[in-house]
């Protein structure tokens, strides 16, 4: 629109405020790109574990960058130093920016203290993918698991993150659960600063909807 108003000119590019970026990207374009990514990796590997690892590594790079970007753009230059803080950051902010909605739920594991789960009815990346029977338990959500791992690693909470299918009765397609298992060093120190998780025993399920 010519002449609609004067946009403030910044003399120094560093003074310009951070742009919001493109809010929406075409879903079909992304689905196409992701399917090509999976197919390309399929030609390079011999087994499923290697394929999952490659998808995870691709996601790790995304996660590392998303953490830095969102810290400046959405969080106003504040870092996360607490475990629950970073988990809810992943569950809401990261999911909202990447997939347009917050994740379905965030739960604390019942058997082990250091396990957390983010579940989603249908991961966006899996929506247009069907897994053949002979590939067993392979889950393309490994890409998303890699993103989560990248965010947690960058923030200083090393973890092993995997994606699993959880069949739910009454539904045709299984839920996807991202299982986060934190490394040893996260837990001794974190119990001091993690005010909620430390006091309760492992039977508690912390559910954020």
């Amino acid at each position, binding site marked *: 629109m010519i002449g609609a108003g004067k946009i403030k000119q910044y003399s120094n590019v560093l003074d310009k405020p951070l742009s919001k970026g493109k809010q929406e990207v075409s879903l079909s374009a992304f689905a196409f790109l992701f399917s090509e990514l999976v197919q390309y990796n399929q030609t390079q590997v011999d087994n499923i574990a290697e394929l999952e690892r490659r998808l995870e590594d691709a996601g790790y790079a995304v996660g*590392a960058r998303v*953490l*830095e970007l*969102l*810290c*400046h753009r959405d969080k106003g*230059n*504040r*870092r*996360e*130093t607490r475990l629950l*803080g970073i988990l809810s950051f992943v569950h809401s902010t990261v999911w909202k920016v990447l997939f347009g909605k917050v994740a379905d739920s965030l739960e604390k594991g019942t058997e082990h203290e250091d396990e957390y789960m983010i579940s989603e009815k249908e991961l966006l990346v899996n929506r247009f993918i069907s897994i053949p029977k002979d590939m067993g338990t392979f889950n393309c959500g490994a890409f998303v698991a890699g993103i989560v791992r990248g965010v947690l*690693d*960058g*923030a*200083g909470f090393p973890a092993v993150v995997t994606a699993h299918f959880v069949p739910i009765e009454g539904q045709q397609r299984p839920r996807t659960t991202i299982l986060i298992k934190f490394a040893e060093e996260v837990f001794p*120190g974190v119990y001091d*600063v993690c005010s909620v998780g430390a006091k309760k025993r492992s039977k508690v399920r912390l559910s954020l909807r």
Partner: protein
Amino acid sequence: MATTACFIIVSRNCIPIYEAEVGSAPKREDAAQLHQFVLHAALDIVQDLAWTTSAMFLKAIDRFNDLVVSVYVTAGPSHMFNNDISQCLPQTG
């Protein structure tokens, strides 16, 4: 009045990836690498301090004689150090 500052960006595993001298002081022969030692020593302090606050800019975390170290911690695993060397004016505060 000559003031230099040394600016270093450190990545994870404490490896410096960028270094710059800002300011107009002449090169000091006797203390050529002094600022690097000082900043390296401040790394431990930063690593502990970074967990106590969610702010990103930490001001004046460490001193060495008249050199003051401040650091900007990023969300990812890197830090940016700034070391002020003031040759004529003593540091206050």
